[in-house]
C-alpha cells in the first residue's frame, strides 16, 4: 500500500522534535541552534531568507553553528548570498549544493568557493525564476525567514521590507514544509498581518533587529557631468521620443542622474505628465524631487530602502502602503510588474560586447543576476499594446512580417570606461572565460544583445532596433564605445552611415550641447538636499551625512 501522505508524517515528526525547544510556537533565542538541529534533516532543501536587502541573519548564524555531523549536505535555495554566514555553511560542510540568484557583496567569495570546489552549483537564476522553481522542483523543506514582529499567535508583520517572504512561505507552508521566522520582537498587536499564523510554525525572537543592506541610495554629490550628459540624452532621445510612462530603473548613478534631472531638464522640455509617471522601482531617494514636483503617479516596489519609511508612509498616494501606513513591498509581484506592465527598463552594467550582450561577471567575481534579466528582456508573452511598445516593435520589424508585434525598450546606459580606466566595452565577455573555467553550460549573461533596444554612452545613443544585420549592430556598438579598443576599431564609414540613418545619435544630433551637462542641472546636489525636498521625512543613513 502506498503512503501518499509521507510528507505530512515527516512534517509532524519535525514539529514534535522542534516543540521540545518551544513554548507554543516560541523558541528562545539561546535554543536556536539545538532547535535547528532538531527540525532540519541532512539533505534538506533549505531556504534561508537572504533577500536582496533583508537577511534572516540570526537564523543564518545559528544554522552555520550546527554540528556538521548531524546536519550536512543541505541544498541551499535562496535569493541572495549576502552574509559571511551564508558561505560558512559550505565552508563547514553543513551545506553542499546551491541554487541562488544574487551574490553582490559575496561575489568574490562565491567565485573563490566555486573554483575551490566547495560549492556544488545547481544554477544561478533570476529572482522570479528561482521563485518559480520553489513551486516546481526546488520546494524548500525548511524556510528560515525574517519579519519585523510576530504576535502571540504567530501572525507576522514583515513591514516595508516584505520582499520575498510571502513567496517563500507560500511554497514551503503548502507543501508540508516547516516555516521558522526570526522576529525583532513579539507584540500583543501587529500594525497589520502580512503572513497569517497558519503558515508559520515557529518563531524566534532574535537578539537584534534583522540586517538590511542599504542598496538603493546614491549620493547626488557623486553624480558626474558624464552621467548627466548621458541622462540628458536618455530623457530627450528615448523617454521623450517613445513617450515612456511606465518604466523600471535599475540602480546606478546614470539612472540616479535621470531621476534628478526630471524636475529640471525634464521640466524645461515640457515632459511632466508625459513621461515617467508609473514605476516599478525600489524606493530610490533620488526620485524624491521628481515625486515632490508632481511627476509621479504611482510606484510599486520590490523592497524598501533604509531611511525612506516615514517619507513613503506620508506619500501613500504614490507608494503601496498598508492600512497601518507602512510600505508593502513584494519582489515577485514587482518583478512581474516590471516584466509585463512596464514599457522600458533602463540600467547599467559592467561590460558589454560587440553584439550588445552584457554581464557583471569580472575575473574573480560572480554577482549573479538578481532581477535585471527579467526587467531587461522582451517578454514574448505580452499582449496588451501601448504606444512605446508598438513604436519599438515597428522599428524592429522594419515592415517585415504580417502580424504586428511590439518590443519592450531595454536600455543599457554606461560610461565607456570604468574605474581605473578599465574599458566597459570588450570584444569578448569575461563571463565566457569564467564559464569555461567552471564548466558551466551557459556563460552568465545579464542581458542578451538581441533583447537590447538601445545603448547610451557619453558618446551617444545606439538604436539596435534599427540595425538590420549583426554587422550593423556591431558597428552601432563600436560607434558609441568611445576611445576603448572596441570603439577605436570601428569602421568609420559604416558608423557615419549609421549616424546618417539615425541609428547612432550624438549629443549634437539631439540638440544637446556637451557643455550644458553641468551639475547645476541636478534638482538636488546632495543627500541633504534630498532631506530638504522631503520636508525632513527622509532620514538619511549616517554614512551619507555631512552635517
Amino acid at each position: 500500500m502506498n503512503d501518499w501522505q509521507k510528507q505530512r508524517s515527516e512534517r509532524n515528526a519535525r514539529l514534535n522534535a522542534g516543540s521540545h525547544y518551544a513554548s507554543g510556537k516560541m523558541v528562545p533565542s539561546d535554543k536556536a541552534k539545538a532547535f535547528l538541529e532538531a527540525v532540519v534533516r541532512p539533505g534538506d532543501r533549505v531556504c534561508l531568507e537572504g533577500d536582496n536587502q533583508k537577511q534572516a541573519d540570526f537564523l543564518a548564524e545559528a544554522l552555520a553553528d550546527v554540528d556538521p555531523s548531524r546536519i550536512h549536505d543541505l541544498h541551499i535555495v535562496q535569493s541572495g548570498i549576502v552574509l559571511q554566514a551564508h558561505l560558512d555553511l559550505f565552508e563547514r560542510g553543513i551545506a553542499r549544493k546551491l541554487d541562488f540568484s544574487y551574490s553582490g557583496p559575496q561575489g568574490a567569495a562565491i567565485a573563490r568557493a566555486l573554483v575551490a570546489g566547495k560549492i556544488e552549483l545547481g544554477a544561478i537564476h533570476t529572482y522570479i525564476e528561482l521563485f518559480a522553481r520553489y513551486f516546481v522542483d526546488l520546494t524548500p523543506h525548511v524556510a528560515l525567514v525574517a519579519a519585523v514582529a510576530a504576535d502571540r499567535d504567530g501572525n507576522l508583520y514583515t513591514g516595508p521590507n516584505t520582499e520575498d517572504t510571502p513567496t517563500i512561505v507560500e511554497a514551503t507552508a503548502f507543501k508540508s514544509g516547516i516555516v521558522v521566522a526570526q522576529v525583532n520582537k513579539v507584540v500583543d498587536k501587529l500594525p497589520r498581518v502580512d503572513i497569517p499564523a497558519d503558515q508559520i510554525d515557529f518563531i524566534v525572537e532574535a537578539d537584534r533587529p534583522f540586517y538590511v543592506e542599504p542598496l538603493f541610495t546614491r549620493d547626488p554629490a557623486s553624480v558626474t557631468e558624464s552621467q548627466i550628459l548621458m541622462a540628458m540624452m536618455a530623457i530627450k532621445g528615448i523617454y521623450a521620443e517613445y513617450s515612456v510612462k511606465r518604466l523600471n530603473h535599475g540602480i546606478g548613478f546614470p539612472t540616479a542622474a535621470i531621476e534628478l534631472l526630471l524636475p529640471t531638464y525634464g521640466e524645461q522640455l515640457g515632459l511632466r505628465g508625459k513621461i515617467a509617471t508609473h514605476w516599478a522601482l525600489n524606493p530610490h531617494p533620488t526620485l524624491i524631487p521628481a515625486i515632490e514636483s508632481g511627476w509621479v503617479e504611482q510606484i510599486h516596489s520590490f523592497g524598501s530602502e533604509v531611511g525612506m519609511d516615514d517619507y513613503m508612509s506620508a506619500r501613500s498616494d504614490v507608494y503601496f502602503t498598508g492600512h497601518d501606513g507602512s510600505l508593502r513591498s513584494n519582489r515577485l509581484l514587482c518583478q512581474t510588474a516590471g516584466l509585463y506592465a512596464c514599457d522600458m527598463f533602463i540600467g547599467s552594467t559592467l561590460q558589454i560586447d560587440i553584439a550588445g550582450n552584457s554581464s557583471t561577471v569580472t575575473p574573480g567575481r560572480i554577482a549573479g543576476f538578481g532581477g535585471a534579466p527579467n526587467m531587461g528582456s522582451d517578454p514574448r508573452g505580452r499582449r496588451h499594446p501601448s504606444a512605446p511598445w508598438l513604436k519599438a516593435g515597428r522599428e524592429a520589424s522594419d515592415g517585415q512580417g504580417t502580424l504586428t508585434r511590439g518590443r519592450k525598450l531595454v536600455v543599457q546606459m554606461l560610461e565607456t570606461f570604468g574605474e581605473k580606466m578599465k574599458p566597459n566595452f570588450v570584444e569578448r565577455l569575461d563571463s565566457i572565460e569564467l564559464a569555461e573555467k567552471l564548466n558551466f553550460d551557459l556563460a552568465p549573461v545579464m542581458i542578451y544583445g538581441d533583447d537590447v533596444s538601445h545603448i547610451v554612452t557619453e558618446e551617444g545613443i545606439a538604436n539596435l532596433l534599427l540595425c538590420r544585420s549583426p554587422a550593423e549592430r556591431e558597428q552601432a556598438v563600436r560607434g558609441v564605445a568611445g576611445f576603448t579598443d572596441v570603439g577605436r576599431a570601428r569602421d568609420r564609414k559604416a558608423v557615419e552611415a549609421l549616424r546618417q540613418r539615425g541609428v547612432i545619435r550624438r549629443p549634437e544630433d539631439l540638440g544637446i550641447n556637451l557643455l550644458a551637462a553641468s551639475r547645476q542641472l541636478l534638482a538636488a546636489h546632495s543627500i541633504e538636499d534630498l532631506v530638504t525636498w522631503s520636508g525632513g521625512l527622509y532620514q538619511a543613513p549616517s554614512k551619507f551625512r555631512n552635517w
Partner: protein
Amino acid sequence: MEQFQVHGASKRRAGGHRRQVITGANASGNLEVLVERVLPDLECQVEVATAVTGFRPIWEAVIKEFFERASPGGLRFSINDGGARPDTVTLRLMQSVQLMEDKA
C-alpha cells in the same frame, strides 16, 4: 608618472581675447587645465602630466579629436591629471575653450 606633449594644427585662431584661464581640479577622476594664449594662431598644443601610465595612445586620440572639434588655434593647454577618463578630459578641454572665447 608620464609627461608628454601633443601638437596640432588648427584651421583658425581660437576666438575671444582672454589670455589665460584655469578650470577643473587635480582630484580623483578629474583634471586641472590651464590654457594660455601663447602660440601662433594656427598652432595648438596640449601638455599632459599624469600618474596613470600606459594610456598615451588614448590621450593622443582624445586630444586630436578635440583639436578637430574645437579649432583652438594659438592655445597651449597644460593638464595636471587626477585619473580622469577620456570623456571628462574632452569635457574639460571644451569647457576651457569656451571660457577662453568668452568676452573678457
